[in-house]
């Protein structure tokens, strides 16, 4: 309850900040639509030349594009602005004020800056997922949709946890400004099913920087490719990664000594 109250206050502040740049917001939404147009065109180019990509059809790639955009929105609306603020706060010591607040510091660090207009992007992503599922027609069961949602959420949690670990490393290595660039760099791989990639790339984006866990895996659930035990395994990975990340954050916080003292 308390957390929700804080979150709504943070949202309010961020809405006020974004209202100062209304024209910017409009242009950004138009640019976003332009990129969506390009992404759909590129899918049509692919499927003009083939009927399946790694065994997946067009409806599945449209839904995958939606899931990819979900993760992309997470990166742009939350990860980048907060990381920038966090890195700055470690360098100049303003992290002190974050820790002093009577709110969970991990929560406050990762949610204090939110690029509000990206909510539009989030809606667009959900529409794409809906359209993709709709295009696949009757072949999708309710159980598959439910497991898809479950694994999409748990995949996003895995990405969120990885982000926490990466920024927490800054407590040990103060000059670690590139902490999330590696996530952004590999993100583009999430546009296509990981099954078409060569083994080494598949290993990197599944186990090391697990973009695929948030993109390909939920789609596999939607296709009905995953057994129940696999689904449970991925949910367990989601929960475990969050617990590990919280512990790393706590351990890191203990090392924080301020910048001036």
């Amino acid at each position, binding site marked *: 309850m308390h957390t929700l109250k804080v979150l709504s206050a943070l949202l309010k502040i961020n809405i006020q900040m974004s209202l100062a740049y209304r024209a910017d917001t409009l242009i950004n939404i138009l640019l976003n639509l332009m990129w969506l147009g390009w992404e759909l065109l590129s899918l049509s180019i*692919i499927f003009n030349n083939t009927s399946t*990509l790694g065994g997946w059809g067009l409806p599945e790639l449209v839904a995958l594009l939606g899931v990819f955009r979900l993760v992309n929105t997470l990166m742009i609306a939350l990860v980048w602005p907060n990381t920038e603020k966090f890195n700055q706060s470690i360098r100049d010591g303003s992290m002190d004020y974050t820790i002093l607040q009577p709110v969970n510091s991990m929560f406050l660090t990762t949610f204090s800056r939110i690029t509000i207009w990206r909510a539009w992007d989030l809606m667009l992503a959900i529409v794409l997922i809906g359209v993709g599922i709709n295009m696949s027609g009757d072949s999708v069961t309710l159980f598959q949709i439910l497991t898809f949602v479950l694994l999409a959420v748990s995949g996003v949690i895995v990405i969120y946890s990885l982000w926490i670990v990466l920024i927490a490393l800054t407590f040990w290595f103060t000059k670690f400004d590139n902490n999330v660039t590696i996530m952004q*760099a590999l993100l583009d*791989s999430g546009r*296509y099913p990981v099954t*078409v990639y060569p083994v080494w790339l598949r290993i990197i984006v599944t186990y090391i920087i697990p973009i695929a866990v948030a993109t390909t895996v939920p789609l596999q659930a939607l296709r009905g490719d995953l057994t129940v035990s696999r689904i449970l395994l991925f949910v367990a990975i989601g929960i475990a990664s969050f617990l590990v990340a919280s512990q790393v954050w706590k351990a890191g916080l203990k090392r924080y000594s301020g910048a001036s003292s």
Partner: protein
Amino acid sequence: MLKIFQRLWIVNWAEQWQYRANSLMYLLYWLVSPIVHVAVWTSIANANGSVNGLTANDFVNYYLLLLIVDQFTSNITIHIFAYKVQDGSLSGELVKPIHPMLTNTLITNIAFKTMMLIGFVPVWIFLAVIFKPDFASVTWQGVLLAVPAILLGFIVNFLLSGAVSSIAFWTTRVYSINEFYFALFVLFSGQFVPLQLMPKTIQAIAHYLPFQLQIYFPIQLIQNKLSPAEILQGFLIGFIWLGVVILLFKWVWREGVKRFSAVGA
């Protein structure tokens, strides 16, 4: 003049060396999308035998050559120059008796490229070992023809980016304009797929735009895919664009500097 370039090189190289970790991250960022495209298109070509006459090997060739060509023809002008207009630090460069864009920004680009190249060479060799391209279609005269084409592609796009970043004189911020410019590049350069796989109308337009000079045209030259008439036409279009962008850049720059209000001064 040569001494000026030497000095600027020393300063810019020192700066690049200091930010080498950043450059390596950028390299990784820049590599992922072509590698993803190789994987996607070779998988499609293998499943269907060929795509529009292109075999899996053709795609491997295309993207591996794309990495090299793009390395030389691309530039980061918009990213470095717009900041200087925004925070007013351009003032210091404007009082010097040399053109800021055509000296300092140019050398920054070259220093950045050199730094990237140090990381790029081993990565490219690694990719070549993994994807095993058969470069049978690559000939010496193709490579020799591609050298001036790559140079032309770099100059045209450098001046075009210079003109686009000079819009910052009017608007201060150019992020949105840059994103739009980049979208045109993605659509018309051959960066996503070899242009012959694009819809016919896009191909027809792309043929006359400067973006394909940066990617598609040099790659086709290296692979010896063009007839002498096509080669001649390609270079002709390139030189016409060179004339256009020189005039465009000169005009935007002259009008822009007049509007420059030097924030913070």
